[in-house]
């Protein structure tokens, strides 16, 4: 669950737009007119809002048995109840929250590693690049999910954070590659040399010269990593390697299946978590294309 969908285009981020102010205003102009960006962002924000605020309005725990068993959606239980009488809506809302958390954490960790490796490899070059490249290739070739399964299987404690950490540790390589190639092209730009001539340290050059120039690219990479992390986490949850005792959309799906929701016709139990994940990740991807079109003058349409 890594690359491809809406991978930031091949356009050179450094050349996008001429600069500063004008770029910001133009970006905003296009952003406001890009339906993909608008639709994607509003769905993501809506889901985020539900995940953030939703739990505040629900006074019972997501796993509490509070209502009648197996009731279809109604005014009282918006998404019905599970066969134990748990409120599916409450689970969904909490699940969204932790899905966002896994995505942010897992995607964030992968992003940190990936960008750091990419920046350092691309900027430093030489033997450092060789080694990091090798590392990247090694991790890239290792089938992430299988590594995760093997690793997570032997973990003593399975929490959300640990899960996210492991996902982060395995899903960074393509981001590192992408950032590296961007860095390579940016690092040959004269202002980078000029910054060195101005007595700047490497990390400052990376953070204040290179990174800001690839910000759109970085944002897009993060989004993809986020989506990937959510999907991987859902997969792990589904085969029972999810966080113990937690709530997440993947775990909801797992328990819906484990408790025969499909066979018993409790569609309101197994549709929402899957649809939630699909909607979230899908709109993230669409948002990404939108961003690409906004940041990348080649793709803009008047």
């Amino acid at each position, binding site marked *: 669950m890594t690359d491809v969908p809406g991978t930031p285009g091949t356009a050179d981020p450094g050349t996008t737009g001429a600069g500063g102010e004008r770029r910001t205003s133009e970006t905003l102009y296009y952003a406001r007119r890009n339906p993909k960006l608008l639709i994607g962002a509003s769905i993501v924000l809506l889901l985020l809002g539900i995940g953030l605020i939703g739990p505040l309005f629900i006074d019972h725990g997501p*796993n*509490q*048995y509070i209502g009648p*068993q197996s009731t279809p959606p109604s005014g009282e239980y918006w998404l019905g109840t599970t*066969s*134990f*009488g748990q409120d599916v809506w409450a689970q969904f809302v909490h699940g969204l929250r932790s899905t966002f958390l896994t995505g942010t954490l897992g995607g964030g960790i992968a992003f940190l590693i990936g960008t750091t490796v990419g920046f350092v490899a691309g900027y430093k070059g030489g033997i450092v690049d060789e080694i990091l490249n090798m590392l990247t290739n090694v991790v890239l070739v290792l089938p992430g999910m299988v590594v995760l399964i093997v690793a997570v*299987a032997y973990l*003593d404690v*399975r929490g959300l954070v640990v899960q996210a950490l492991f996902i982060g540790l395995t899903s960074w390589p393509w981001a590192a590659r992408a950032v590296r190639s961007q860095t390579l092209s940016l690092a040959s730009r004269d202002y980078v040399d000029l910054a060195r001539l101005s007595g700047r340290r490497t990390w400052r050059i990376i953070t204040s010269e290179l990174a800001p120039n690839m910000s759109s690219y970085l944002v897009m990479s993060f989004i993809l990593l986020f989506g990937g992390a959510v999907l991987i986490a859902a997969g792990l949850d589904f085969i*029972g390697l999810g966080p*113990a*005792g937690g709530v997440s959309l993947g775990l909801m799906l797992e*328990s819906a*299946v*484990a*408790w*025969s929701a*499909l*066979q*018993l016709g409790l569609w309101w139990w197994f549709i929402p978590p899957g649809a939630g994940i699909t909607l979230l990740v899908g709109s993230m991807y669409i948002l990404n294309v939108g961003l690409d079109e906004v940041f990348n003058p080649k793709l803009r349409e008047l």
Partner: protein
Amino acid sequence: TGESGAGGSGGYPRNETLYTTGTAWGPPTNWNPIMEGNYAVGTVGLVYEPLFLFDPEENDYTPWLAESDEWPDENTHVITLREGIEWTDGEPLVAEDVVTTLELGHFDIHYSNIWDFVESAEATGEREVTVTFSEPRPQEWMNWVANRAIVPEHLWADKDQAQVNDDPNADPVGTGPYVYENHADDRMVWRRNDDWWGTEALGLEMSATYIVDIVNASNEVTMNMLGNHEVDMSNNFLPGIDQVIERDETITSYYEEPPYMRSANTAWLIPNHEHEALGDPEFRRALAHAIDIDQIISGPYTNLVEAADPTGLLQPWDDYIDHELVAEEGFSYDADEAVRILEDAGYVDEDGDGYVETPDGEPLSLELAVPSGWTDWMEAANIIAGNAEEVGIDVTPAFPEQDLLIENFRRAEFDLMINNDRGLSNTPWTYYDFIFQLPIRDEQITANYARYENEEAWELTERLAATPTDDIEGAAEITSQIQEIFLADLPVIPLWYNGLWSQSSNRVWTNWPSEDPDTPDSYATMWNNLYQLGAIYTLAEIEPVE
């Protein structure tokens, strides 16, 4: 393996084949009856057979390979084998076979411990075996007799330790009603042994030519297969099956209404007595009162199980329960009572965090462990934790890997857990052995995980073991004393009876056991030891649909 018979091209004819599932947790890989827990389910029962069957309804032993037995004195058991039984390779069943089987126990195998009390086993005739005991323990001995499969001397006598433990025995030679036909990773196929001795001797004719036992898939897949009548009998716990049974005429279980299933074993809440508070009987009693079993039963189990008796004994052992005592001393869900007991014993919430502290004022928080992935138990643990919270006991559910949990509880590294290691058997001794066994070792491997030390209770248990199996009254007297101790101390807390999961499709095969007097009463469950408890009859009693 794998020369296919009928399965070759056209497959096994549907109306001659019984499809079952729910018993095997992995691909069949060995047919070695000594490798308990590893052999393909059916190896013992369908291929290899025991000397006796235990009939839980009658609380009696049915001679099987044996024709009769006799106790000349309490230290001697003489077993006579039936005449005319042949191994599938044509050799006759002889007394030496039984002796060899017993003597395999000198190797490191799971029943090595019988040699703790068996002194010798000799063939005193061609079909007569005499077993002498160094210490009479008829209950325990009969447990062996009614469970363990006899292996042929002519094939097994020369095996060494490694072969006994490792040999997959891919070409099993037994005496039973079925023989090995075929297997794949997701199935085990048995073919009827048309020369089976039982047809003549017992008048039992196996109905299905083939039994295809499907390796357990996920609940959802199993449910689909059952719904499509691709399997005839499922021995899985299928949540929500009650709705299917209600809805679908052709899917039946033993009872037509809750609990639908008979009971197979008791799920116990096991506290670690080495833990300060859990070592305190009052605290355990409070805990027992705090648990709202009905919530578990109607929740994750959708009423497919029943609450356990306060003694924890299964229904077939009703004779051994002292009902008067239970009425007086038994416990039931009563949160207020729980709070009261806690208060009296000095467990109160002084620091106002909502949870009680120990009488010394130490904060008290407990972890309730159930194996990860056991979804029903996980839910139950959640409920118990919630119940405990209501009376002010801080219990957090934890879901470690099963193997980790096993290792931990053997070493007393746990607070609370749920366990059901022992189930239906020929004697309640197995239960009391499980609860009271002494001495406590560094590792408790098969019994007394709670580490409850009560010499008196253990002594009573030993006496129960020594009680002749037909002396039910004598045994009940002992169990009554044991129950007095049990109910006072509650070393472990009985929760509910796990079901003897069985749901059958009547589309191809019918006449499944049920409470209806017109149908058989045997067990329709093919788990490992249930053949020896009479499930084998079911295979003869089912009838093909026209």
